[in-house]
């Protein structure tokens, strides 16, 4: 088999338009604030507490998402270079440098101006660099920084003592929010918001689950990333909940008509790791040329492992939020992450695993080399590890990456013994 010309990526037309509108509206609202300015809380995606801060009237900014938007629009490098000129080293996380550079340059992006924070919330303990990032912002903007200590997940289910510990911290956090905003905590409002979260989460899970079908009606990595925005940024709103109904109606149409993201599905992959946003389409094209589709991926779960049985429970608001934070993908120990990937391979009928490592992120990436070895040597699952960066285009070497991917798909094809196709020029 030879690689063919990459086909143009096909999105769910209505859902993609709707997602674009939601992104535009979100950044426009951030920039203009539409009336009396809402206070702004900065938060990380993994295990975020968006429902709680929204219930106190905060708008939420996720600098990681701003960062990936900068990278995908090819404007991350000037921010990174500016941060490096301020003394941040080559090996510091690309998200961190993009944000700190952007903030120093005034916060203006092609998709809107990112407002400065009034409150910094770090509810993710998995990355020490992230704490330092928030400390740098706290110093620059003189705003309070709240750090919640979220214990790492050592077992499949959250431990009772961890839950108790985190709920106690959430109560302290709520008391702080009451003091800062002068508003009382409205448990009924939080429950209402969580109803919306739960509905969005169920819709998102239904979408992700359709990757089990053959051929897969979804692209669970490259395409799914676009549909992550509502579940991560707008979770808790009615709009986000309704969005997934639109998505799933279009997926059902794909199933009915057989018009799948990869016209001739040859290889089904599980993908692990943050995408190289700076060269997103080029990287995706390396898959499509070989008829490869990702049927499951870990990255779209960084905002929550909803597909593994957890959904927010409005009847137990704080306990449920604590369970959510503990269970975030990035908060899982490596044995749990490995097990999850093994289950995805089995449950989604994947042929292989592709791991994309991030040069400037040791937090997410450390352990991926061992994961590769375990998948290959212990489970016999063909696995390719490639590395570039999520934010820094200087680390993306297209010729080398393509060569490795071509060789990997060639070897899969050869071992499968499929009939070669005529050559089409690269």
């Amino acid at each position, binding site marked *: 088999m*030879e690689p063919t010309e990459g086909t143009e990526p096909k999105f769910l037309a209505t859902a993609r338009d709707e997602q674009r509108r939601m992104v535009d509206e979100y950044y426009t609202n951030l920039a203009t604030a539409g009336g009396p300015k809402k206070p702004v809380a900065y938060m990380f995606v993994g295990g975020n507490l968006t429902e709680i801060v929204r219930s106190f009237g905060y708008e939420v900014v996720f600098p990681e998402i701003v960062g990936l938007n900068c990278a995908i629009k090819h404007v991350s490098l000037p921010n990174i270079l500016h941060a490096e000129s301020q003394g941040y080293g080559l090996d510091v996380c690309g998200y961190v440098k993009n944000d700190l550079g952007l903030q120093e340059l005034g916060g203006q992006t092609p998709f809107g101006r990112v407002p400065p924070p009034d409150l910094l919330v770090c509810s993710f303990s998995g990355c020490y660099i992230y704490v330092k990032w928030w400390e740098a912002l706290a110093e620059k903007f003189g705003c309070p920084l709240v750090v919640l200590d979220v214990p790492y997940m050592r077992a499949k289910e959250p431990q009772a003592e961890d839950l108790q510990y985190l709920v106690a911290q959430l109560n302290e956090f709520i008391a702080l929010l009451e003091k800062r905003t002068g508003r009382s905590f409205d448990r009924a409002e939080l429950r209402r918001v969580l109803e919306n979260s739960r509905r969005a989460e169920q819709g998102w899970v239904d979408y992700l689950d359709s990757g089990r079908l053959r051929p897969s009606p979804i692209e669970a990595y490259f395409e799914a990333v676009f549909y992550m925005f509502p579940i991560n940024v707008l979770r808790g709103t009615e709009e986000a909940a309704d969005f997934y109904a639109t998505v799933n109606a279009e997926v059902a149409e794909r199933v009915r008509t057989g018009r799948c993201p990869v016209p001739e599905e040859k290889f089904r992959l599980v993908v692990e790791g943050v995408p190289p946003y700076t060269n997103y389409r080029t990287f995706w094209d390396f898959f499509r040329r070989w008829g490869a589709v990702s049927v499951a991926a870990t990255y779209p779960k960084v905002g929550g492992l909803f597909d593994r049985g957890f959904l927010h429970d409005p009847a137990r608001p704080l306990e449920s939020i604590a369970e959510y934070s503990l269970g975030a993908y990035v908060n899982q120990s490596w044995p749990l992450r490995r097990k999850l990937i093994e289950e995805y391979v089995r449950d989604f009928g994947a042929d292989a695993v592709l791991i994309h490592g991030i040069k400037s992120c040791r937090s997410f990436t450390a352990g991926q*080399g061992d994961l590769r*070895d375990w998948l*290959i*040597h212990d489970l016999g699952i*063909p696995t390719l590890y490639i*590395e570039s960066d999520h934010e820094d285009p200087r*680390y993306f*070497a297209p*010729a*080398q990456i393509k*060569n*490795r991917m*071509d*060789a990997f798909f*060639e*070897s899969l094809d*050869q*071992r499968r013994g499929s*009939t*070669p196709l*005529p*050559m089409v*020029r*690269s």
Partner: protein
Amino acid sequence: MTLVAGVDIGSTTAKCVLIENGKILGKSLAPVGVELVKDAERSLEQALAETGRGRGEVAVVTGTGYGRFKVTFGQYTVTEIGCHAKGAHFLFPATRVVLDIGGQDTKAIKINEKGEVVDFAMNDKCAAGTGRFLDVCAGALGLDVSEIGSLSLGARHPVKVTNTCTVFAESEVSSYVSRGKEAKDILAGLNASVVSRSLSLMQRVGIEPEVTFTGGVSRNEGVVRTLGYRLKLPVNVSPLSQYVGAIGAALHGLERKEATAT
């Protein structure tokens, strides 16, 4: 009888091999310039000139190497990883691990009993531990890269080259020269550095006999000996080791032609 050609356009040289009936009939090797399509054409013509056969008699041409897409007159392309696996299996059928060190790439390839790729690992996005690394460091000593192997065999007190970055290693070589170290000891240190880096790649895919060493650096006897010593295993090196990619390409082309015909 089907005459097939494999054309390997690497980062430094173009290689072509002609195979018929399981026998290598002709071959060529020349440096590449900036016009890769012409280099590819020339390599095929030179290999054909060795055989006295005409271009029209070649049933299939397969391109490999980084410049494989510049073999525009060919029918197939295969990555050099698949080709080195196939070529090494052809020369040494019991091969299970291939180490290929070319101009800018080092690859460790695990293969099965059919010569199919099971796993592979490659150097990161720099030329550390590759042919270019040795080339640059030989230059710092005023030597040609082809002299490294034989000179290094006379080393008595090999130095330790700690830098894996080619540019920094060149500075390190200059530093050893200024401290009065002998060239043969510095060269042996460089060879050992290349082997250390290669071993870590080989360990990624799992080392098991037989090990076959291919690519331009396999012409360096110092690296071959150090590798065998560190592995505690014999290392297969063919006189055709620089042509292994082209051999594999020719064989892949033949397989594909036969598969398409059936």
